[in-house]
């Protein structure tokens, strides 16, 4: 048998699943002692170019409470044409279409290599993709121009049948009617008012086919394929391009000392409402582009007086942020409405100041939408990130999926505690739902309105098997992930991943269990839990809780990361970082917690070095990847050489190569990452070097630099404890707590 690391890697590769433990303790008691729960990081749409979708529908267990999907772990009686569900042990007849089944003629779902398999549901119409642009016009002309260009560009990336809509807002909100000849029409709303879907429907003159629908039953939502506000790209391409071209900066005068009035909250509400009454339960993206905070109406986060700054963590702690709670409530309500209907809300916030992401985070977090934070719409960070949203895979389909639901089924011995990630609960109670909630719990189904190949959920389980009920030898605990989603082609698809782990008795096989521990996965799982709690609970408690839990190095960096530390970060930034952390896959998450540091020098090939202040040497070029930033740092000497222009001289070509190497590597990273990281090129003493200095372990500080007395490295001016100190404390703590 392969080593655990290989096993883990293979599982991740094939199924997109990583468990914290790969051998499970067989009883609740033992599991509890393990501290780190049995949990998995699951990437539902893990990119599997080698996995062809199957053009038929899955076979389900006939037990109503189970409905598990036929999978390679099931026992099959080929002669009787029966199969036993490995979750509930129900014996099921194969459907008639499986009549030809036999040992040698197995359907794909029974082959072990298809532990993950994707079905295409043939029923139902092809749903159009809906993209609703919600555009802020309260911004500098330059920004607006850049944004308009990006938007126009994006039109060319949309499939011709996709429906698009445009809502612009400033002081007022305009819902643009598309496809008008000779005159452009829009419906205007005042930004200070929140309208419910019914009011909106009346005001927009949209008649919901309720009457007709009622007759046909609720299951036949014969949604209109388009309406005046949402029309196929192919039809109104030119029109919309012109419309965007004529988009003006919000004309209302902004007096000195005031912020522009920006009706963001109402605009989003209208966007949600518009889709709600036209395309319920259909994949749709609301793409919100904002250049500043909402300053009026529902969801406002700051008043229009410039003298009153937007809330900081300090204000929040002092309970001084008077708009926050109300604003948050508004956006939560929107998120809930949107997610109920399977709509995604993306937020592209480009401003130097905060824009209220803290309040709005739930919109993205609950709907699987993107949250992108940049300084300006003119930056490549925004432009490229936005462009990357529309990336297509080899088959020409967007790498995004819509309106997904994830259902998890488990063996009887374990139950589901909850999930953490860009999802909302569907409140599906069932036999495999634990009473012990972790994250979004109390359900075996979650709605994930927006998915991409990296979207990763942390799912926490609880072993419920009692100590006195031994599991039969060779028994395995199984988990089945059933993900239904709307593919960007409009098809409805179901991806099923079934995975199983061995049980082990902690009393006798503790070594096995220990060996199966997946340190990285566990670290991320715990970090997610920590972040989740940080979001929902008071800060210090989380740190203390975390300190009791622990996992070496990661915890040190995690404690210092922006995910838990809010010092030096605005509430918006914290929200943004956490948002990304909660949805990225393991590798990316690891980078976020512990940035990667590479060193380039004449002394040898590029090498990873410790994220420590001691790594900062004058003759090195450092490349740091924190996920959010890609930073190239030129040591003092290198920097001087560069300034002297040696790289220009033919005889110093090697220096030129040295300079070029990290840049090339950085480009590579930049190309694959979403969202685009901030790219920083700096040098010793440069102002931007602070990003590096804030990340490295402050092994040398102004307090101990003389004590250490080493020649190398750069002292960091901080009061934070170094890893050394942290470890010392940790050891002490570990010993004492064990006692």
């Amino acid at each position, binding site marked *: 048998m392969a080593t655990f690391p290989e096993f883990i890697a293979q599982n991740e590769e094939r199924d997109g699943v990583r468990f914290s433990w790969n051998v499970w303790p067989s009883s609740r008691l033992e599991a509890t002692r393990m501290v780190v729960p049995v949990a998995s990081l699951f990437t539902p749409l893990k990119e599997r170019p080698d996995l062809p979708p199957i053009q038929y529908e899955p076979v389900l267990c006939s037990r109503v409470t189970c409905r598990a999907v036929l999978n390679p772990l099931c026992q099959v009686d080929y002669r009787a044409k029966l199969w036993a569900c490995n979750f509930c042990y129900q014996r099921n007849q194969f459907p008639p279409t499986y009549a030809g089944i036999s040992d040698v003629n197995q359907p794909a779902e029974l082959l072990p290599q298809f532990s993950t398999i994707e079905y295409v549901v043939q029923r139902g119409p092809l749903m159009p993709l809906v993209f609703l642009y919600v555009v802020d016009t309260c911004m500098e002309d330059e920004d607006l121009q850049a944004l308009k260009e990006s938007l126009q560009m994006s039109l060319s990336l949309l499939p011709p049948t996709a429906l698009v809509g445009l809502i612009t807002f400033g002081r007022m909100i305009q819902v643009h009617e598309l496809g008008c000849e000779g005159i452009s*029409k829009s419906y205007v709303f005042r930004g200070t008012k929140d309208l419910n879907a019914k009011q909106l429907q009346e005001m927009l003159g949209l008649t919901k086919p309720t009457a007709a629908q009622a007759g046909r039953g609720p299951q036949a939502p014969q949604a209109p394929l388009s309406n005046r506000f949402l029309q196929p790209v192919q039809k109104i391409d030119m029109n919309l391009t012109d419309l965007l071209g*004529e988009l*003006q900066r919000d004309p209302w005068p902004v007096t000195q000392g005031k912020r522009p009035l920006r009706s963001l909250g109402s605009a989003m509400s209208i966007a949600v409402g518009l889709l709600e009454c036209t395309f319920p339960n259909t994949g749709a993206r609301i793409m919100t582009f904002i250049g500043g905070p909402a300053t009026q109406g529902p969801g406002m986060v700051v008043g229009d007086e410039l003298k009153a700054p937007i809330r900081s963590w300090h204000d929040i702690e002092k309970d001084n942020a008077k708009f926050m709670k109300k604003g948050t409530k508004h956006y939560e309500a929107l998120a809930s409405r949107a997610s109920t209907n399977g709509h995604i809300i993306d937020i592209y916030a480009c401003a130097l100041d905060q824009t209220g992401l803290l309040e709005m985070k739930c919109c993205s977090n609950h709907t699987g939408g993107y949250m992108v934070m940049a300084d300006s719409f003119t930056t490549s960070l925004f432009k490229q990130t936005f462009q990357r949203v529309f990336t297509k895979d080899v088959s020409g389909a967007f790498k995004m999926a819509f309106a997904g639901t994830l259902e998890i089924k488990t063996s009887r011995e374990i139950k589901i505690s909850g999930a953490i990630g860009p999802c909302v609960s569907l409140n599906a109670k069932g036999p495999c739902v634990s009473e012990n909630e972790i994250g979004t719990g109390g359900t075996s189904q979650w709605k994930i309105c927006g998915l991409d190949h990296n979207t990763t959920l942390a799912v926490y389980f609880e072993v419920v098997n009692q100590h006195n009920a031994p599991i039969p030898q060779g028994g395995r605990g199984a988990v089945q992930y059933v993900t239904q989603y709307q593919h960007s082609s409009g098809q409805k698809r179901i991806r099923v991943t079934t995975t199983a782990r061995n049980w082990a008795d902690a009393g006798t096989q503790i070594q096995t269990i220990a060996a199966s521990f997946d340190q990285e996965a566990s670290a991320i799982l715990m970090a997610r839990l920590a972040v989740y709690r940080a979001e929902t609970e008071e800060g210090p408690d989380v740190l203390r809780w975390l300190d009791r839990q622990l996992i070496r190095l990661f915890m040190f960096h995690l404690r210092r990361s922006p995910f838990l530390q809010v010092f030096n970060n605005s509430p918006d930034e914290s929200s943004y970082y956490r948002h990304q952390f909660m949805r990225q896959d393991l590798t990316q998450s690891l980078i976020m917690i512990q940035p990667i540091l590479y060193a380039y020098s004449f002394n040898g090939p590029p090498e990873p070095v410790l994220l420590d202040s001691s790594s900062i040497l004058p003759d090195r070029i450092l490349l740091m990847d924190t996920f959010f930033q890609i930073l190239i740092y030129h040591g003092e000497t290198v920097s001087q050489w560069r300034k002297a222009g040696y790289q220009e001289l033919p005889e110093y070509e090697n220096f030129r190569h040295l300079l070029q190497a990290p840049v090339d590597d950085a480009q590579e990273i930049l190309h694959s990452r979403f969202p685009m990281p901030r790219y920083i090129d700096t040098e010793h003493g440069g102002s931007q070097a602070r990003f590096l200095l804030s990340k490295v372990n402050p092994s040398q500080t102004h307090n101990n630099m003389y004590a250490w007395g080493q020649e190398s490295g750069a002292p960091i001016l901080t009061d934070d404890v170094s890893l050394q100190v942290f470890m010392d404390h940790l050891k002490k703590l570990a010993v004492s707590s064990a006692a």
Partner: protein
Amino acid sequence: MNVNQQPPMASPYGQPQPGYSQPSYAPLGGGYPGPYGPYSGPATAYQPGAPQGYSTYASFPSKAVPANPVSDLPSPLELGSARGPPPVSTNQAYSQYAQGDIQNGPPPMDHSMAQPAQRPPVCQPYSHGAMNLSGPHPSYPQQYGVQPSMQQMTNQMSGMQVGSGPLTSAGPGYAPPSYTQAPHPVSGAPSQPPPPSEPAAPQPYYDGPPPSQQPPFPSSAPPPSQPFPSSSPYSGPPLPANPGPLQSLDNSPSHLAPSPAQQTFPNSAPPPVSQALYSGPLPPPDLALSHLPCIPCPVPCRPAPSQPGPPHFHSGPLPNAPCHPLYVPAAGQPPFPLAPCSSLLSLACMEDTQPSRMVSPPCSNPCTTSTRPLVCAFGQPRGPQPGYAGPQYPGQQNYGAVPAPTPAPTQKRLDPDSIPSPIQVIEDDRANKSSEPFTTGVKGQTPPLVTTNFQVKDQGNASPRFVRCTAYNIPCTADMAKQSQVPLAAVIKPLAMLPPDETRPYMVDHGEAGPIRCNRCKAYMCPYMQFIEGGRRFQCGFCSCVTDVPPHYFQHLDHTGKRVDCCDRPELSLGSYEFVATVDYCKNNKLPQPPSFIFFIDVSYNAVKSGMVNIVCQELKTLLDYLPRENPEADSVVRVGFVTYNKVLHFYNVKSSLAQPQMMVVSDVSDMFLPLLDGFLVNVNDSRMVIESLLDQIPEMFADTRETETVFGPVIQAGLEALKAADCAGKLFLFHSSLPIAEAPGKLKNREDKKLVGTDKEKSLFQPQSGFYSNLSKECVAQGCCVDLFLFPNQYVDVATLGVVPVSTGGSVYKYTYFQAEMDRERFLNDLRRDVQKPMGFDAVMRVRTSTGIRATDFFGSFFMSNTTDVELAGLDCDKTVTVEFRHDDKLSEDTGALMQCAVLYTSCSGQRRLRVHNMAVNCCSQLADLYRNCETDTIINFFSKYAYRSLLNTPTKTVRDTLVNQCAQILACYRKNCASPSSAGQLILPECMKLLPVYLNCVLKSDVLQPGADVSVDDRAYLRQLLSCMDVSESHVFFYPRLLPLVKLDGGSLPMAVRNSEERLSKGGVYLLETGLYLFLWVGANAQQELLSNIFGTPTFSQIDPNMTSLPELDNPFSQRLREIIDSFRSQRSRYMKLMVVKQEDKAELIFKHFLCEDKSASGGASYVDFLCHMHKEIRQLLS
């Protein structure tokens, strides 16, 4: 008996005229008789009317009834036709009468009773008239009967007898009893009548206020009808007949006498009564004397009755034969007048210079043309002009009124010409005053009438085009003012347009410090400021405060104490001028922005279907080039914006940089806001392409709309928000079609309920449904947002409520009911063009300052007031007037007179802030006579109508009418009591300046607002009510007394002389043009000459004339050209385009046309002029007694 009586009656009729005049004159001296005669005439008229029953006016209405009877009865007609055969006709007439009465049925009975009772005074006069009028007699009978009752039997009797025998005998004949009886019998309800007729009854009649019901009038009415027939007959066989009748009458009286209590005599009886009655009233001999034109009746008889003089008159009629002779005697004064009528009115005479008019009760005469019974004419003297010598009067009167004065025989009918004629007054004024420019320098001088073309020279007082006062000599004390009841008011049209030959007010700039003003009362520098101390200070003419003259304004005084530069400075020498206002006079101390115009077009189904949307959009494309501007060379700086709406609003961005317009829909109407800022209000030239594209598209976009609901409140709110956002004043043009029932602020419900008309709740129909629009209008005014509303309703739209904002913001309401693109396009477009182009001021505040002693207490017009002194007008255009009422708060001095300064601060259409100042000085008088000599009836009527129309909001309509009548009666009674020389109570004496007051007042009372016909919708009434509130005097004049022009010879530059608004003035063979201020009617007689028709219509055949044409064909003949010129010039004189309607005689549409013949009885019950005059007279007499 009856027969006998009848004949007599007939004879009376025929004779009456002659008789009347003659007899009456004779006795008393021409004067007396004359007056009486007239009275009696009216009286008769009244009586008939009374039956029908209007309550107060009842009499009037009653007349209508009478008319009916006549028509009903073939006999009357026949009579009419067969004037020749008086006897027969008479007989019939009588019978008819009887019948008529009967028909009136109960009324007759009652009427007779009631009439007498009510009318008493009137009746008497009337009766006299009646008596006099042979024609009337028949009708009179009843009346008489009544009257008789009123008066004592004896009197009547005596009178009748007298009349009958001689003239006087008639009086006796009257004997109430007989009359009453006579009528009664006819009616069939003898019992009642008789008793009443008896003394007791009679008294009540006379004395007591006539029963509310028609009695008085009714009674009068009937007579007329009868008279006609009879009269006609008379005319035929005038002389002979007359005598006959007379005699018969005489006889009848006698008969009556016997019968008194009973019916027997009815017919005959009445006549006598009338006489008797007359006699009673008659006393006025004085009048007669003075005036005298009339015919003195032989009258001795009269005297016999209660009063010598009068009776005679009345009697006069009866004894026609004698009368004539009498006439001569009357001669003391020209007898002529009398002749004309049987009805006798003797009007005026003036003693002193004052024109007092005596109207003797007009008798109703048979004169009418075919249809109408006529009202008798009062002998009108032309009296109006004071200048005329007493004697002349008569003569004049005769001319004007009475065609054939002397020949009693010729005329049988009462001649309406004998009552004061508006036409005559207008013509006289025109003749006398249009040649010389009117200079305003003389304080207390009454300007020419509004109907006169005259030039004004500003010499220190504002031109009458800007300010017209009700009185130019105002009483010194409040007591006097109260006694006279003459309203003290000024009708101010601050931005009036002047004819090209008059210079518009000069602009004065006093520099940075702003206009120079009195320190205390803040009056602006004006000619009334007295410079003292060598010119270093000036004393305010209003408050007497002394203020230093700023150094830069200092100027030396000449030897008379006037500044040397007096003539160089408009503010020191003129009545009207403008100041350039400084920033202190601006809102928020910021110079104003140029105003904006915003067009709101209803695009709901009805609006689109009627073609309105299309028309508006087409028109705006060109109209936008004519936005108001001050410098014709430059482009207008007015910016424009466009909105369409149904139950949501569509704003349009028409910024010049756009390739195509942008439409912004605001469906959240519950909380209106402006969806865009930049590009909504634009300069027309900059955005021309986009605007044209928009206007082209609007009709297309909504061509297929199915939306029927509209909003209204949010529309105005939107405009208001737009102006707020642009920080400017402006005007909203709303083109609206239907009741706003869509869910939105200001939503209305259909509350039209015709059942409320005539009840105390009627006033609620004029009140807005909710306070929403009042509040909204406050906001509009604060922003300088003027709203003009163009309505295109197919049904009730609640003008009373929708009009609140326009009316409060200085805007206008235009209403095109059942708008049809083809028919009404021209009218609408012309209104719109004018409305858009006319010069106007925005965000205006008007303040009227007065010298101590009087003060402005009440204001009427389209504006808003947040305090008691400042009139705030969001918009003030050149057609808007503000009427200001003044009251005393102290004694005034004859030496200084009273001063008034009206200052209007406004923003011009170019965005300049200005102050327009109008100064007016009037005399103060301690003699009431001066007051009556220097007042202006047109203005008084303007004021009264505004006052009455406003009162409707809070008071039942009936009360309003009563109040009006009462006040007028008091005015006239006061004159009679204090200014006229003593005369008998039976004479109606009118001040020369106010002799048209009754006829005009009657028109006001008959207007649709105060007296709705069945076909007048609640909306129309509300519309007219609002419309009147800002009319100037010339508009209100033609509105109440339309101009009726016979289209005969149209050569030359002058217009044909107008004729009075009465059907009897229309000749079947003629074509007439009627101008009401809102409409033009072209009435075509059924027998119009072919040539005439060809010239006008291009077809010689009456039947081929298309009654639906709205404009005349352009024919190449001088007549057609001239006619069209006239029509065009009429239209250009009015602020609203008058739609031309062609009315063919006997056509259905003629009813509408007849509605405007305001001297006739109206279908809705309004009294005829004659009836009303009689009623008025009765009221006056009551006041005097």
